């Protein structure tokens, strides 16, 4: 195996590097997990273009069409493709709008936590000493907090809504980014190219930003992708128990929550948002695992 990786690394400098690169990129995409990627793209498109894609207003009540089953089952109507809920709102439109909530929470929340965590991890690993000890003790404390209880406590004091979930995600999510970044920085710091940058009289700032920071990005990308699934799940759970996004604004969690009362009479209300949630989380995890392999330079060569 060692012999293998070493000889494939010795890529010769022959002509056609450019075309080979293009070819590599193509095979890279072709070998990616197509279905999870399609699911994620669909969800993103739904979130962005919800007003154009949704057949109805997600909050418009149609009392006459209450609990209409999906179009293909008995009693269904072509007007409401996935049926309606207990007040006659279109389920499909609500799920499409729900994707918005999920994605906004994931994107904003994770952006904040990942950025904060990475900066802290970089500082901690790079400067070491007391700075490192201080930051890492905070991380230890963060990781030992009972997230769910504290989140519930938060939510019961402050009026609930989407922003509260974002805050919770940002507040509780950064610590594992810090840990992972710090670990990578600690080993990068000892690499020869950092010593050589010092010999070339590069400033601390230059070494941090140009030499160290770009290297853990692969790991962080994987981490973010895996986190998206987790955060979407968290948002759903939180809205499900009634603390997150408040009705009538649709979120996958609160649709599910409403649907649970009708599980025996109107199975579709809880089933479809549940399926959407499952598909999205599954896809994120799948893509995360794939990225982990795809971004690994050792495996990429093969």
């Amino acid at each position, binding site marked *: 195996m060692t012999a293998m990786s070493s000889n494939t690394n*010795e890529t010769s*400098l022959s002509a056609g*590097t450019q075309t080979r690169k293009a070819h590599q990129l193509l095979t890279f995409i072709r070998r990616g997990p197509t279905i999870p990627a399609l699911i994620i793209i669909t969800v993103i498109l739904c979130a962005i273009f919800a007003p154009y894609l949704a057949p109805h207003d997600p909050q418009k009540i149609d009392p006459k069409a209450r609990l209409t089953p999906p179009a293909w089952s008995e009693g269904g109507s072509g007007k409401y493709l996935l049926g309606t809920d207990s007040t006659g709102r279109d389920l499909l439109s609500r799920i499409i709008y729900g994707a918005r909530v999920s994605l906004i929470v994931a994107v904003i929340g994770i952006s904040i936590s990942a950025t904060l965590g990475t900066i802290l991890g970089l500082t901690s690993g790079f400067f070491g000493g007391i700075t490192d000890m201080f930051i890492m003790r905070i991380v230890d404390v963060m990781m030992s907090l009972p997230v769910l209880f504290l989140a519930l406590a938060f939510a019961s004091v402050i009026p609930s809504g989407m922003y509260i979930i974002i805050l919770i995600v940002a507040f509780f999510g950064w610590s594992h980014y810090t840990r992972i970044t710090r670990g990578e920085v600690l080993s990068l710091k000892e690499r*020869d190219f950092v010593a*050589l*940058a010092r010999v070339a*009289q590069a400033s601390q700032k230059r070494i941090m930003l140009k030499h160290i920071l770009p290297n853990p990005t692969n790991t962080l990308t994987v981490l973010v992708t895996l986190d998206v699934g987790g955060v979407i799940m968290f948002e759903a759970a939180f809205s499900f128990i009634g603390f997150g996004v408040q009705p009538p604004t649709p979120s996958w969690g609160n649709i599910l929550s409403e649907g649970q009362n009708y599980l025996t009479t109107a199975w579709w209300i809880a089933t479809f948002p549940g399926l959407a949630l499952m598909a999205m989380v599954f896809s994120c995890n799948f893509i995360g695992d794939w990225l982990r392999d795809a971004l690994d*330079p050792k495996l990429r060569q093969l």
Partner: protein
Amino acid sequence: MSDVVLAVNKLTKYFPVRAGLVFDRTKGYVKAVDGVTFEINDGQTFGLVGESGCGKTTIAKLLLLLEPLTDGSILFKGKTLAEMNNEEMREYKFSIQAVFQDPYSSLNPRMRACDIISEPMTTAGGFTKVDKEDRVKELLEVVGLLPESASMYPHEFSGGQRQRVAVARALSVNPKIIILDEPVSALDVSFQAQILNLLGDIQERFGLTYLIISHDLAVVENISDTIGVMYLGKLVESAPAASLYSEVQHPYTRALLSAVPIPDPDVEVTQEVLGGEVPSPLNPPKGCRCHPRCSLKQVICAEQEPEFRAGHRVACHFDTN
């Protein structure tokens, strides 16, 4: 005799060893470099050899200012670093560059070859983008790489090519001195010869002074004018490369030389196999540091540390030649 460009005088570096569960307490010192003195003439090559842990890499780090000295001094053009003003210090820092052992670790995987090579110019300041591009092109040619390689990333190069990039980078700010820390140890035989020849060529072309550090005596001998042999933080013998092999004096050097397998099946193996292993530098033997492994040892060796003798300089109590 040409001028001395770089010298070290009683260079010493101790690393504290800390231990303790709650509070760190210094429990002792690893005497990585313990009073080493040598000088390098302008345009010449000084080779440092020794087994792992003898302190040769620490000397490189001290000269490159990657570690602070414990004691002793570094002299550049006759002046110690401590006496230098900011301007002179800056001159020293850009006069000394380095090539390290592992070309897989010494090039930032996220930077293109052109940025890697021109980085010392970027940090030195005062160069335009065009200056840098021209210089990179010129340097790539000097080290024998195609101009197209400028835009490639390290993983697209082979080990030997990476080491060429590292050499080009070291040359970019026209240094006087290049420190070569095991420059070919990680390379295959054919690349090893390529890089050694390249180093010889550019030394002649740009009038460079080298300090080469290696565990491979044959490599050091091939490229050096003077060789210093280190053992446990001390220089035990220093001699012109031409005479080290023929007039070896120190028993440790002799053992080291005879331990190198000769690529000739007809050579009778007359090995003085050095018994035992290198003692811990945390607690080096008293007296002559070589005595526990030396075949010539006498009572005096365990008690008194031998001084460095003049001429073909050697630190041993006996005249073994």
